[in-house]
């Protein structure tokens, strides 16, 4: 009874601060005014990352630390001193103005789950995880397991059958033969240590499921870099240029409509505008540091005579390549942009919203094929397809085949997808 009571007491005590009304929303506001200059939720900044910080420290400790960490350290708290050491002795500000409730609100905010971003997960490294494959693999594993069990059963039955025949040939019954065999070989099968046997069984079973799972998982994701968003040497914002300023993609990626490569613009293209535009209002009279990188790369001297403004000490800008198609696949931008009339966004995603460019599509062959099956070739307006168009038209008029019409005729228009015109054949892309 005493035990129970004391337990209740302890529990009620420990939950008291939690029961107090915490406001994560208020916490967010406070976080953004007070903490954000040194802390981020999911990434270490000047200070450590703060998401789920409560799992590491209890509230009482945190309250003391946040409000006046200097005092706290002076009090001789060991953990406080270690924390200070661990973070390179970077002194944290004193927040005496914050009430306990305020601090708890902030902590509540750090407890929230990260918001799920729309679109694919963004990371600076190639990722290789998705749910679809996971379920698929589980099914595959299950099927394999069932097959294994069935085979095992069949094998066992066959063995029994054979032994029966052997026993009959020796003139004894199967049971007799089995018994005499067992008495001879019993020793071998005595379970030495049941724990080991169980462990071995579990490991074996796990291996049976996970080995194929890893195998499939591995081969399917090698080299796929969807979501890849590396740091670039110049923090160029597509969101600003393509989104807010509405500059046409092909102003910079000018070769997209007549070359294999859309090409990263040469810096002299940047200079068409940035000879004049040297920064935003926020930069005041200073040259924006990112724009200054362009000037540095070109060794730009605005005072120079026309034609001699780019100096001799130029330095190449080494962008990190995001879209890496393997060498074995041939892709031509002009085929898709000029002939196919595709918008850049259909493959590259909401580029006009990207502060930092990431790989939107998986660039796997299945992804290519999907499009080749569904997009429409503009047979009516391109004379190259004249013969194809005429032939399909003729056939639609002459053949009274519902099947044919269903295939080539949709919404009163002739529809021919690349796949209907050999767009799925290997040597269209692999040579």
């Amino acid at each position, binding site marked *: 009874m005493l035990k129970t009571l004391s337990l209740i007491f302890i529990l009620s005590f420990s939950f008291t601060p939690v029961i107090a009304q915490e406001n994560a929303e208020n916490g967010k506001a406070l976080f953004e005014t007070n903490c954000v200059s040194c802390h981020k939720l999911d990434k270490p900044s000047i200070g450590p990352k703060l998401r789920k910080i409560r799992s590491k420290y209890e509230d009482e400790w945190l309250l003391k630390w946040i409000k006046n960490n200097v005092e706290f350290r002076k009090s001789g708290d060991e953990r406080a001193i270690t924390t200070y050491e661990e973070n390179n002795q970077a002194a944290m500000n004193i927040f005496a103005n914050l009430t306990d409730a305020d601090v708890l609100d902030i902590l509540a905010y750090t407890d929230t789950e990260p918001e799920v971003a729309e679109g694919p997960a963004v990371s600076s490294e190639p990722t290789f995880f998705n749910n679809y494959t996971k379920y698929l693999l589980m099914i595959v594993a299950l099927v394999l397991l069932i097959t294994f069990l069935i085979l095992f059963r069949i094998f066992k039955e066959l063995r029994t059958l054979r032994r029966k025949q052997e026993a009959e040939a020796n003139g004894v019954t199967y049971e007799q033969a089995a018994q005499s065999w067992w008495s001879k070989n019993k020793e071998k099968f005595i379970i030495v240590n049941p724990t080991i046997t169980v462990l071995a069984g579990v490991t074996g079973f796990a291996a049976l499921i996970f080995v194929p799972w890893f195998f499939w998982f*591995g081969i399917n994701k090698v080299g796929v870099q969807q979501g890849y968003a590396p740091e670039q040497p110049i923090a160029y914002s597509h969101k600003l240029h393509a989104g807010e300023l509405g500059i046409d993609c092909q102003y910079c990626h000018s070769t997209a409509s007549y070359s294999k490569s859309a090409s990263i613009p040469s810096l002299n293209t940047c200079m068409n505008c940035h000879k004049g535009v040297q920064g935003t209002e926020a930069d005041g009279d200073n040259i924006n540091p990112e724009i200054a990188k362009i000037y540095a790369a070109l060794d730009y001297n605005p005072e120079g005579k026309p034609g001699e403004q780019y100096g001799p000490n130029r330095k190449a800008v080494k962008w990190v390549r995001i879209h890496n198609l*393997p060498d074995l696949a041939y892709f031509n931008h002009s085929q898709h942009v000029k002939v196919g009339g595709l918008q850049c966004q259909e493959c590259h995603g909401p580029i006009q919203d990207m502060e930092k460019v990431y790989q939107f599509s998986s660039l796997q062959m299945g992804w290519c094929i999907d499009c080749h099956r569904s997009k429409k070739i503009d047979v009516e307006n391109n004379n190259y397809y004249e013969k194809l168009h005429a032939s399909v038209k003729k056939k639609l008029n002459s053949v009274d085949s519902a099947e044919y019409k269903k295939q080539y005729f949709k919404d009163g228009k002739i529809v021919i997808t690349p796949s209907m015109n050999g767009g799925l054949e290997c040597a269209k892309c692999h040579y």
Partner: protein
Amino acid sequence: MTENKKYWKGEEDLVRDPSFIHSAKNEFSEGLPLEEVLSEDDFELSSNRRDFLKMFGFSVTAVALAACNKAPVRKAIPYLVKPNDVTPGVPNYYSSTCGYTGMPIEVKVREGRPIKVDGNGRCATFGGALSVAGQAGIFDLYDNERIKKPLRKGVDSDWATVDKEITTLLTKISAANGRIALVSNSIHSPSTLAVIEDLKTKYPTVEHINYDPISYHGLIEGNNLSFGKSVIPSYHFDKAKVIVSFGADFLGDWLTAEKFTKDYTSKRMPGDDMSQHIHFESNMSLTGSNADIRYPMQNKNQGMLLISLYNEIAKVTGSKQMAVAGQADVAGQGVSKTAKALIAAKGNSLVVCGSNNPQYQVIVNAINMALGNYASTININNPVNLYTGNDETFNSFVTDLTAGKIDGVLFYGANPVYSHPNGAQIKKALKSNVKLSVSSSISLDETSNSCQFVTPDHHYLESWCDYQPVGSTFTLGQPTISPVFDTRQMQESLLTWAGAIDAYSENTMKDNGIYGQEHSVSPFYNYIKSKWSVTDKEFNTYLHDGFVIKDTPTISVPGMIANTDEIASEIEKSKSAADGIEITLIEKTGMLGGVLSNNPLVQELPDPISKVTWHNYIALSKMNAVRLGINDNDVVNITVGETKMVLPAIVQPGQANGTASIHLGFGRTVAGKVAKGRGENAYALIQAGAKFNSYVVNGAKVEKTSTGETYELARTQTHHHIEGRDIVRETTLEDYKKDNRAGNRYEKPELVSLWYDHDYRKAGAPNHLWGMAIDMNKCTGCAACIVSCSIENNVPVVGEVEVRRRREMHWLRIDRYFTFNNVKDVNYKEELDAVSKMVPENFEPKKLTREKALEAIDRKLAKDENAGYEHFENVSVVHQPMMCQHCGSAPCETVCPVLATTHSTEGLNQMTYNRCIGTKYCGNNCPYKVRRFNWFRYNDNSAFDFHFSNDLGKMVINPDVTVRTRGVMEKCSFCVQRIQSAKLTAKRENRSLEDGDVKTACQKACPADAIVFGDLHDKESEVTKLFHNERGFAVLEELNVKPSVRYMTKVRNI
């Protein structure tokens, strides 16, 4: 005619050598080394399960680890200031001139690096022909063994130091009145010649000596003796009705062979207009292999044969005969028959001679005069300037140099230490006798290695130049890449030393544009412009076109001034009486006598006749070989006077009895790793006479080495053998005139297919259906297509060892078949009867096929010792290019377990490398044996240290074609990258695809226009017309695999 002919690829094929049959049976000469593995001591079959688990575990772990690996970070580096005319991903084409062959070319440039060279078809003088050397020469630009900066006494130096020292020495020597020789390969560039004049003005003791390793002195001097003009005239093979050649390999390496091929084949269409080609020669040359009638001859009889031919003609025309005691002829009354043919075509014939003896050339000129050819087929007023070397001048230079009479030597490209019979003396003199020696070679060679200074020249693709290959035609060369190394064009070096460079250093391209791009202007560019004295606009037009054709000088008949009687009697007196074997020194296709011997493509190119790669050899006639007890690959000692040489031997059908031949261009001692120490230097055998250098060596002793040593030559001749099936078809013009299907009338087997015919193959389908037609009457077997294909499709070079193992990677090969000519004593009918009688009664089928019977007769002939093997010198040859036939019902596609090879709706047999797992089933199942397996990774592999294994060499790779890795099959793709690109261009330009928009690499390179490619669904296309030609046949049509390649029956004008 084919009815009485049996074709064979080599002697082992003819006699059905058991080891050959064994190896020919398998597509791959070596199986997997299973037995070796199984016989290993620790290998137990019972441990299979464990091994399996080990492998399984390993592969799972490997894949899991690979999946966890971070992908490598790749960089993309754009231009800082993009040149206006460069678009990444789009090739630019520039007109230029091939520095090796003097032909106008078009250079394909991707992102500032040339990746392919083709002939410039707009230039009518040469018709866009480009030879093997012209195609392959681009590799030398990217040779990482080029000299990277100027050398002073073999040590790296810099231009300022070298220039200062050379100028000082030149001034000193010149002031002391010492002789300075500028030894160059023949220069036909007007501006370069002007630069040399500038040098002479500054240093009056400079003398310029032109030097050709393969000399045309005889031809030039012959014309000087005959007409007082030291020139090589223009020959017009397209105007000749009868062509007679005495040892001139005018389709192979003689003069502008690529242009001659174009002209020659234009007159080879069967019909009344078809020319007749009669060939006399000792070795079997490419030209001889194309002759309608070929007479084997010993070169020592050549003079007398020419005189006899003249006299035969004079007899008929009634002019005065040359006074000689004897008459000469070859077996089969060749001379008198030839005389008759020539007279019948009087005024429209052409006689050429490859000899370097000026006196022979005088007789040839006399024959052409007598036939009135100077009014039609020979234009002496429009000379060929490609070769101007004079043996007399050069030999006296060597004498003077050895005697210490010359104080300074400047070598401009020439490498006489290697390519002159007295090279050793030159080398010694360079080391001890001269005060100044400079060489401008691109890579270190025998001569530059002996010089004090090496001032490396640009490759021609980095240089500005103008040329005048033929009197009427000027061509321009422009750089297509920035200099790769710290090299300098020799013309600029000469201008610098002449102190004239400053006048031309002004940057005339002031208009730098708003982007501030720097145009560095070559002083020699300014120099050329100043010499041409034309407006900028005109000059740029010439540069764009690549050539200017001035008015062709009209043909006029020159007057003969030589005393032919005197010359004839001298020839008669000087006839060699030496015993022993007569050796002719010949060129290896594309090697330019050693200039391109460090080029892996040229080394790996099978010789069109012997099909030997990577080495030179002595080719003996069967008769001599049997008498000397020599077999293929036996190493033999060759002794000519004092000179000794050790080379492997081959038995060459067609080699005249009593003669032998050796390729020049091998045996380099100072060269890149590809050429160095490969074969023997046959230049040492040349006999440098007072009047001319003779490439025919008499009285050679050839014997087997005492140890019985052998050297296995890497020879492709019987690789990819097709089991004696009916592959080539041939007829005579006479028969063809009677029946256009002559030689092509075969009982068509009933064609039943397992498969339904696809819609896309049916007439009227809206898709393209690609097809190729190859005219065997035009194909000369010159191999330019093989090189072009290899460069376009990134085909790796595999090296000598791998070729020996039948693993050459060429997607396109040229099959060469021999067949016995008029074997005198064989009555085929009787023999056939005899053979049929040998068949036992119960033999099923009762009748032997005619083909099998012929094979038996030929086999008997081949082994007939009583016949003395003399008939082996008289064979004729058929060349057949063979590549993937893109079968409509392809046998390879049905056996691929992973669907890596599939068919497209455009009729292409597609090969998907990324799917291929290398079972090689397809290669086994291909009736044409055209699939190649990648046994190794040929790039970045020190075992295959050719161009693909270093960063510079890789710059020649075509970025539109995958570089294949090991373990996959590959084969001709019909240049699918070109098809796709042409289609895309048409789509972008909103038009339909025209015939001729797609030209495959082989088609573009073919100087004979023998290959035609196009859309078979286009009724008007050239290829469709050829597919309906009566001469057309598909190889192995009876298999009903529906090949997309058709060949045209060969018609001989006999």
